[in-house]
């Protein structure tokens, strides 16, 4: 601070700086809206109309379902499209070719596809598969299709109770795929109408205007008069107004350059990258089913888009559609297409439409009114183009229609222009602020500074309002650019101008009275209310955590700890037995104790998850306490409330694995450590308590050891410039104590592993911190994406970072935020394993930092309103903006109002625990299904042996580990020494030969593919191929499948048994 300034002067300058910041923020936000609305091509999205189609579902209500129907055509279609909607995801298949795929968890996804090239004359099969990961509820679809055959016959198809559906592919015996026309429909159960038809529902938006496919393609193929191999075709179309919605579809016989009003939409260079010229090798690993892989191997059919390259040149033509609205101006618009073909005449086909304000279409297409331009000749000598065939004529026939993406030519100047728009808007807002402040100060005969502050505070609610308007853009139920519209900008501008009228209200007295009343009201309840509120919030949190706590199956991580916790009853330590010896737990040592305590009431999902649920609830209280001890009650209560409702925290509190306990203990450590260091000298008892708490945190998960350096960093910054604490003996005793625990834990781990020979890969390869940032696997962005910019955390991050200049002066904030940054830094750079759950134990610090920053900014605005302007309106504006900002923070943090799934830096890609109602792995139903259908002589390969043993109440027989993806120890004590699974001691089958030996001996072999994706990834290709050929999928559920291999010696099921079993 400048030494010449008195505190009062400094305060005044601070007030002006603050006001300036507020106005600039509002201006930049408004500038962003203007830039996005008027200076960036609009990304239009559309809702599909499904007409009379109904949502249908399987009778069995399974999460996985395969729907199909047949349609017979006399001739190949000239127009055919299909609209599909489903819950979570779908794969639409027409005659065994993929027509479209959509995926967005907890969303009713939709898509529209051109299927004319997939259909043929004769019997066609339209199929849709759905694999839900959200629960509860069955897989559901809604389909509407339209097929116009050559000759004009129209077939319309909608989903209804006539469709067939099954919940498992194994219903199809033999080698036929479930989408094959050869599969008899009679085998399949009928679908049923879903109750969702009677309720309102939201569908996701699609990028393609449905009218592109739904209105018939018109136009003729055009040539130049001399049928040259290179020609430029041109046409002028009339638009009613600027940026009128316009779609254009174009196909050509060669390389195409498309210009709309001088703007180039296509790529300049048509050779593509050099990699495009390389021979096609098998692509990178894709998640396909063994059956699908088998099909590809057998038939060489590729999924997805049809191959565009190769084959006859005449087969390559595709009608690509472009949204050219952004480049359309009022009046005449020029469309120019230059075609360069190699050894054939240059020709082009165009079909398009403008959307009038009443929704009707104004169509245009290629015909003889188009001109062929000769660049060497004068402009007025353009020749008319020659029509040589209608749509559908030889050699191309009816063309496939695809959505083309105009090439993004944004360069330095584009970005500079965008920046300029934003900065100019901010400058205008700033100028208006100065102008109005000057005028008002003059007219009201008051200090200019007071008017400036008051006027600046008027900007705050508008800025928060604009932020609110941004949220729907990230909600899957709204179009991507919903908020970028003229109406909102006009409203913001009018609000900005109109709110100045409040300057004219002489309401100072009212302000005083209102403030006094509010203060009196709060002071009456100040003493008891926060505690009552915190208890209420904790009760709400407990209810949210307890609800559906046992709904989903144990996962393998939970079951590992549950199994070990049983050892506590006999030896007092968690352990499992292996090869007759006790193998004590070597990680998460402190976690099984609460499980064992809860296990006294019986072992079930409810009892095992109860400790987590309670610790999650206590975490809410800890958040409140941390907030109040570091800042104030408001911060504590708001943080506790937001934390109580955050999906990530609710989900982990419903899981028996270590994260919840680790988070609880680390929060406790952070609170106790703060209590210890906030006084001089350090508070010894709190220090001891913090040390003990840290040890339990460490024994809950070793990765939390990074808390120690982070506490040190926090201490250093909290006590910046002070060094007396280096002489604190408590510090060194604590460090020694912690060091002893850490070394003891390492020794225990080494001793436990030493007697065993193990092969395979596993996380236990990771022994401690390392210089991870020097390795090739280093991913600096991992926790930025998983923590800082994860969907519900983005606004906390924004507030915590943007609030730094305001909050850094607060000592408590300097304790909190550096610790958060330090933990993130350590986990990013010094631990050679990355997982979203690793940042969970310090995630509350982010929530608290964001809330604290929000509340501090709120307080600062109130202080400004009171000290500088003393106006009721300014006071109300500051409160309105502050409350709205806190509300915004709350609303974006959970799913109650907004589903901001797209807010994440990685888009709509949820982690396993980030949303409510997402299933992890359904071992329970898969294992129980196998148990119920087991016959004498059957052999079981459980996916995860100890989970199977728990749910089936009996052990499996073998463990499949053909790529050594799991660590397997060697058991020399067996009659036939071999590798065994480390949990159940099941013999390991390591290759196809061993697998065949087992399956040939067994009457029936059951394989539980769970978790399904990693099972495929970690199994040898020849084993997958063998299973593809010999096994049938008899049961499917969330991320799990049950495969059955039936040997010759098996007892044949009675007729219909299979069907009954499937149900």
């Amino acid at each position: 601070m400048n030494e010449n300034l008195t505190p009062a002067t400094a305060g005044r300058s601070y007030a002006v700086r603050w006001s300036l910041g507020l106005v600039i923020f509002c201006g930049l936000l408004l500038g962003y809206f203007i830039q996005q609305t008027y200076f960036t091509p609009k990304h239009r999205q559309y809702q599909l109309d499904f007409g009379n189609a109904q949502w249908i579902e399987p009778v069995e209500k399974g999460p996985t379902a395969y729907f199909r129907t047949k349609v017979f055509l006399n001739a190949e279609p000239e127009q055919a499209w299909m609209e599909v909607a489903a819950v979570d995801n779908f794969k639409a298949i027409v005659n065994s070719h993929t027509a479209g795929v959509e995926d967005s968890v907890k969303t009713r996804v939709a898509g529209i596809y051109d299927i004319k090239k997939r259909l043929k004359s004769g019997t066609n099969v339209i199929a849709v598969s759905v694999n839900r990961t959200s629960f509860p509820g069955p897989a559901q679809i809604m389909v509407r299709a339209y097929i116009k055959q050559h000759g004009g016959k129209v077939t319309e198809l909608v989903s209804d109770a006539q469709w067939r559906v099954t919940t498992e592919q194994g219903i199809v015996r033999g080698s036929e795929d479930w989408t094959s026309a050869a599969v008899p429909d009679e085998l399949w159960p009928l679908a049923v109408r879903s109750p969702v038809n009677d309720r309102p529902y939201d569908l996701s938006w699609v990028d393609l205007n449905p009218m592109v496919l739904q209105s018939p393609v018109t136009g003729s193929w055009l040539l130049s008069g001399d049928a040259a191999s290179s020609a430029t075709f041109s046409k002028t179309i009339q638009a009613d107004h600027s940026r009128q919605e316009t779609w254009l579809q174009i196909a050509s016989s060669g390389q195409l350059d498309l210009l709309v009003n001088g703007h180039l939409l296509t790529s300049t260079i048509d050779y593509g990258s050099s990699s495009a010229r390389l021979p096609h090798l098998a692509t990178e690993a894709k998640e396909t089913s063994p059956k699908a892989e088998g099909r590809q191997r057998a038939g060489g059919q590729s999924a997805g888009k049809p191959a565009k390259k190769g084959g006859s040149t005449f087969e390559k033509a595709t009608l690509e559609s472009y949204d050219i609205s952004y480049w359309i101006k009022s009046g005449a618009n020029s469309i120019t297409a230059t075609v360069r073909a190699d050894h054939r005449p240059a020709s082009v086909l165009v079909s398009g439409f403008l959307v009038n304000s009443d929704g009707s279409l104004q169509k245009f297409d290629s015909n003889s009114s188009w001109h062929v331009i000769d660049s060497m000749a004068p402009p007025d000598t353009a020749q008319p183009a020659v029509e040589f065939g209608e749509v559908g004529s030889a050699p191309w026939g009816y063309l496939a229609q695809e959505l083309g993406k105009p090439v993004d030519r944004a360069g330095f100047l584009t970005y500079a222009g965008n920046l300029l728009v934003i900065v100019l808007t901010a400058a205008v807002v700033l100028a208006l602020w100065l102008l109005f402040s000057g005028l008002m100060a003059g007219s009201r005969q008051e200090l200019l500074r007071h008017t400036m502050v008051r006027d600046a505070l008027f900007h705050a609610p508008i800025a928060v309002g604009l932020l609110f308007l941004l949220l729907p853009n990230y909600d899957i139920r709204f179009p991507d650019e919903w908020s970028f519209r003229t109406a909102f900008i006009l409203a913001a501008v009018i609000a900005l101008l109109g709110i100045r009228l409040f300057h004219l209200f002489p309401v100072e007295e009212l302000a005083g009275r209102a403030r006094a009343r509010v203060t009196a009201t709060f002071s009456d309840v100040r003493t008891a209310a926060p505690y009552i509120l915190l208890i209420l919030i904790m009760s709400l949190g407990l209810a949210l955590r307890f609800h559906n706590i046992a709904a989903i199956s144990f996962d393998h991580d939970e079951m590992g700890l549950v199994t070990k916790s049983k050892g506590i009853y006999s030896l007092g330590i968690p352990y499992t037995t292996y090869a007759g010896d006790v193998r004590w737990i070597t990680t998460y040592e402190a976690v099984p104790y609460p499980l064992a305590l809860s296990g006294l009431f019986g072992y079930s999902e409810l009892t095992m998850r109860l400790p987590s649920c309670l610790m999650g609830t206590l975490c809410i209280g800890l958040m409140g306490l941390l907030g109040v001890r570091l800042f104030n009650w408001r911060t504590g209560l708001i943080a506790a409330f937001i934390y109580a409702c955050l999906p990530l925290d609710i989900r982990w509190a419903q899981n028996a694995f270590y994260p919840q306990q680790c988070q609880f203990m680390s929060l406790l450590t952070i609170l106790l450590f703060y209590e210890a260091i906030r006084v001089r000298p350090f508070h010894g008892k709190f220090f001891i308590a913090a040390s003990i708490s840290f040890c339990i945190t460490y024994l809950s998960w070793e990765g939390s050891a990074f808390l120690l350096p982070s506490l040190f960093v926090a201490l250093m910054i909290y006590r910046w410039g002070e060094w007396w604490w280096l002489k604190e003996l408590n510090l060194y005793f604590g460090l020694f104590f912690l060091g002893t625990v850490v070394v003891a834990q390492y020794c225990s781990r080494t001793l436990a592993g030493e007697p065993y020979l193990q092969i395979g890969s596993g996380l236990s390869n990771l022994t401690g911190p390392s210089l991870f940032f020097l390795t090739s696997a280093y991913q600096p962005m991992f926790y930025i994406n998983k923590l800082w910019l994860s969907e519900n955390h983005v606004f906390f991050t924004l507030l915590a970072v943007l609030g730094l200049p305001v909050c850094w002066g607060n000592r408590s904030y300097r304790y909190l935020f550096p610790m958060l940054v330090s933990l993130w830094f350590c986990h990013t750079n010094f631990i050679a394993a990355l997982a979203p759950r690793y940042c969970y134990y310090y995630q509350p610090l982010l929530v608290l930092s964001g809330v604290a920053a929000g509340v501090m900014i709120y307080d600062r605005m109130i202080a400004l309103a009171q000290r500088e302007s003393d106006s009721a309106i300014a006071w109300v504006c500051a409160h309105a903006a502050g409350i709205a900002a806190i509300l915004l923070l709350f609303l974006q943090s959970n799913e109650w109002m907004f589903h901001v799934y797209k807010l994440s830096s990685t888009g709509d890609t949820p982690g396993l625990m980030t949303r409510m109602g997402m299933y992890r792995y359904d071992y329970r139903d898969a294992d129980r299904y196998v148990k119920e259908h087991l016959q004498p002589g059957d052999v079981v390969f459980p996916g995860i042996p100890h989970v199977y043993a728990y749910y089936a109440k009996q052990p499996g027989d073998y463990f499949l580990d053909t790529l050594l993806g799991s660590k397997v120890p060697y058991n020399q004590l067996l009659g036939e020494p071999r590798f065994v699974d480390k949990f159940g001691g099941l013999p390991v089958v390591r290759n196809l030969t061993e697998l065949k030996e087992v399956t040939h001996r067994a009457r029936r072999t059951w394989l539980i593919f769970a978790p399904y994706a990693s099972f495929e990834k970690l199994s040898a290709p020849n084993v997958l191929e063998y299973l593809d050929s010999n096994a049938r999928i008899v049961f499917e559920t969330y991320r799990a499948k049950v495969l059955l291999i039936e040997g010759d010696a098996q007892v044949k099921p009675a007729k219909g048994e299979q069907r009954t079993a499937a149900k």
Partner: protein
Amino acid sequence: MALAEKWGGKIERIWAPYWLLIVGGFLVVASTGLKWVEFPFSRNLKGVQLPLFQHIGLLPHLSIFSFGVLAIGVLLVGIILSRFSVAFLAAAAAILLTIFALVPAHLAFEQPGLLSRLTEEDQTMPIVNAFSKNFLPQNYGASEIVPKRLQLYSGWGRFVGAWSFLRLGWTCFGIGALLVGLYALSRLRGARLSVALVLFGLPFAALVIVLAPAMIGQYYFTKASLAKAEGRSLDAIAAFRSSMRWDGWHAQDIDLYATIGDLQRSAGVEPNSRERSISQALTLEKAAQFEQAVFELEGVAQKDDIMALTARREAARAHTSLGLALYQAGGIGSAVTNWQAALAEDPTQVYALTYLARGYFMIGSYEASIKAVDQLVPIVRDHNQLLANAYSIGADSYAKLGRDAEARNYYNLSLAADPLENYWALTGLVGE
């Protein structure tokens, strides 16, 4: 206790006023030994290995005229001269920030060959992985982050592309330079605003100077694109050539030569031009007629100019592609011959060594396979999965030769390089 107090006091006296400089200086110096540029296939570049002027070779090496060494020098001079005036340190910080800002521009616009190699390796990696999957069980290993989509046709796209290859060392360097600058600012008495302007204005001005030719090149490229789209082929050719003069990237773009060849054909000019030959060659490549394509390209490569160099590189690429096609068709011997030719034509086609190592193994030339592996190892040393797979191929060859000790050693090296789900090395060691 007294000793602790004494040392605590000393630490406080040094740390409290200089912590920004200490941390910033440490970051600047340490960053020069960290990875600045990540190559998807070959060795990464540290700050002291990123040359200011000359081209890097196949294997990076310490260079006196490198960004890292320059940065250390500037920092040291700044710190020494700050005894006389903190303004010198501020000037040093401004230069450091300029260096920081210039690195992506240097890659994108000053050394187009380097960016070209980076992007080529990036595009080739999926093919190398797919090739490896043809013969070995999946080694999932730990995934590396490499850029996914590069838009290289615009100056901005190339700038962003170059930036996407920059890594931790460069980031630390920037943070360090900023901290040093903040320290200098905090120490200055008065005129802070002007120093701050210099601090951030200098990098901006330097960036503008470096970007100017590329932006002019971009202007001509856009002009050419519009002329091409309007059918004005001759104008387009002239503008494309202007863009090549202003921007080295375009001068090394084989696709652009081919586009000019196409335009010449449609305009009916220069019937025997080299661009037309390139256009013909690329068309042949697209049609998988690699031998004819190589013939055309080698015709273009006869001269000694930038177009010839570009054509030679493309010929090497075509050889590699032909080798892969032959390998898939079972013609291993011919594939090996083509990969050898590719390496002879353009030594930067280092990924051909992976193919060669496996190719030699397949035809029973185990010694040659081991030699190729030994050549490959220093090149891919920074990439665990590639290194592990290279060692595994070597180990397979040693095993075939009956040299079990060496085979075991190589399997061990493979496992050490990539212990995660490295089934190949694991089963090699177990003896399956």
